[in-house]
């Protein structure tokens, strides 16, 4: 019941979470660390109780839109966080947050949470590994950007960031939705306008996914009529090693380019891969495409973990 309820609330938060937060509704999920489904207070005593074997290296796992931390659960048991602890000694920190809030707001909240964590983590932190699934990857990027601007201390502990199924250049389905809502609102018919209003109820988080807006000011570049991937104004931070996992439903390269993992097209999922070679923003060995893998599966796939493990071994 608990897991299902949290999942239902995760879906609700993803859909109208900005409204819930704005109206101070008790169903709004605050950003928090969770252990076995229960939130952990951010003070040393609570963290010592929740993490009796706290390591100096932690991995922060950020779920995607309308999800909770349960998205990481592999069908056969375990998850990427537990495996990274087993294989490399990273203590997994599962994040739960209101995915309907604007991505920059969640990024700011995550940046603050990690800065606070530095002071209360039971042992001195030496490394923070970031792992974001889908929207979670954009939240991670927004947090890094804001920490970089604000000169936060935790950012210096981040050496690597893993993005799994993250729409780095935005999600075209949201851009299509934006166009349809605009068209419906322009129709001189009360029922069409009502449909447009209902469509416009979708959360700020969903709207930010359209162009992968990491800062509030990025919304100024939204163009209603454009369905193309936007030029991203916030580059990946050069001080961090970035690794990307993208999915592709089809094994045919052309179909894979267009449809990607069903939700995120290949160009967006890989942060810039085009049909022409040499268009990746990252070294090719930092990008892995899983053919025949759908979007949600990327968060709990043993093969994906094998890739994460390989990258962790490479970089020591």
């Amino acid at each position, binding site marked *: 019941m608990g897991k299902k309820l949290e999942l239902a609330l995760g879906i609700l938060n993803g859909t109208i979470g900005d409204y819930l937060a704005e*109206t101070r509704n*008790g169903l709004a999920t605050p950003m928090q660390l969770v252990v076995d489904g229960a939130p952990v207070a951010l003070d040393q005593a609570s963290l010592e109780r929740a993490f009796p074997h706290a390591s100096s290296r932690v991995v922060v796992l950020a779920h995607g839109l309308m999800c909770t931390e349960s998205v990481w659960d592999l069908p056969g048991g375990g998850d990427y966080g537990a495996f990274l602890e087993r294989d490399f000694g990273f203590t997994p920190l599962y994040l739960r947050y209101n995915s309907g809030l604007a991505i920059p707001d969640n990024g700011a909240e995550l940046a603050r949470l990690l800065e606070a964590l530095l002071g209360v983590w039971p042992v001195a932190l030496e490394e923070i590994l970031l792992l974001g699934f889908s929207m979670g990857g954009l939240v991670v990027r927004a947090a890094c950007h804001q920490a970089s601007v604000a000169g936060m201390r935790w950012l210096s502990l981040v050496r690597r960031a893993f993005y799994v199924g993250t729409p780095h250049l935005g999600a075209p389905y949201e851009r299509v939705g934006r166009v349809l809502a605009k068209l419906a609102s322009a129709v001189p018919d009360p029922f069409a306008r*009502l449909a447009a209003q209902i469509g416009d109820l979708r959360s700020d988080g969903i709207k930010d996914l359209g162009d992968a807006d990491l800062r509030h000011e990025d919304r100024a570049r939204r163009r209603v009529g454009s369905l193309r991937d936007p030029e991203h104004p916030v580059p990946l931070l050069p001080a961090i090693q970035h690794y990307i996992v993208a999915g592709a439903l089809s094994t045919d390269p052309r179909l894979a380019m267009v449809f990607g993992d069903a939700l995120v097209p290949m160009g967006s999922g890989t942060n810039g891969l085009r049909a022409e070679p040499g268009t990746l923003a990252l070294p090719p060995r930092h990008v892995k495409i899983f053919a025949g893998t759908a979007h949600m599966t990327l968060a709990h796939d043993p093969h994906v973990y094998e890739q994460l493990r390989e990258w962790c071994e490479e970089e020591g």
Partner: protein
Amino acid sequence: MDATRWRGLVALVRDAVEHGSRAVEKVQLEAAGRPFGILEQIPAVAEPTRVVHVIHDATVSGVHGIVRAVARAVGTTVDVALRVAEHTSNEHDRES
């Protein structure tokens, strides 16, 4: 589910009824306004049409107003009941 979430659920249902009812009311008034508007241009039926139009709009707004008022009343009642239940539970915890 804890009391904060129950209260949140009640508030959400109340908001949904409030906003939904207002939106539907607006659509109904606007949709009905078109045929009434045409008929009101015809001199032979203009006057009775205006009367029917006013009655129609008052009925629609009245029904939606009642729906919203009932939703608010039910929401407030449930909210009070939750507070009482929470208070009783806290008292019980303190005693035991």
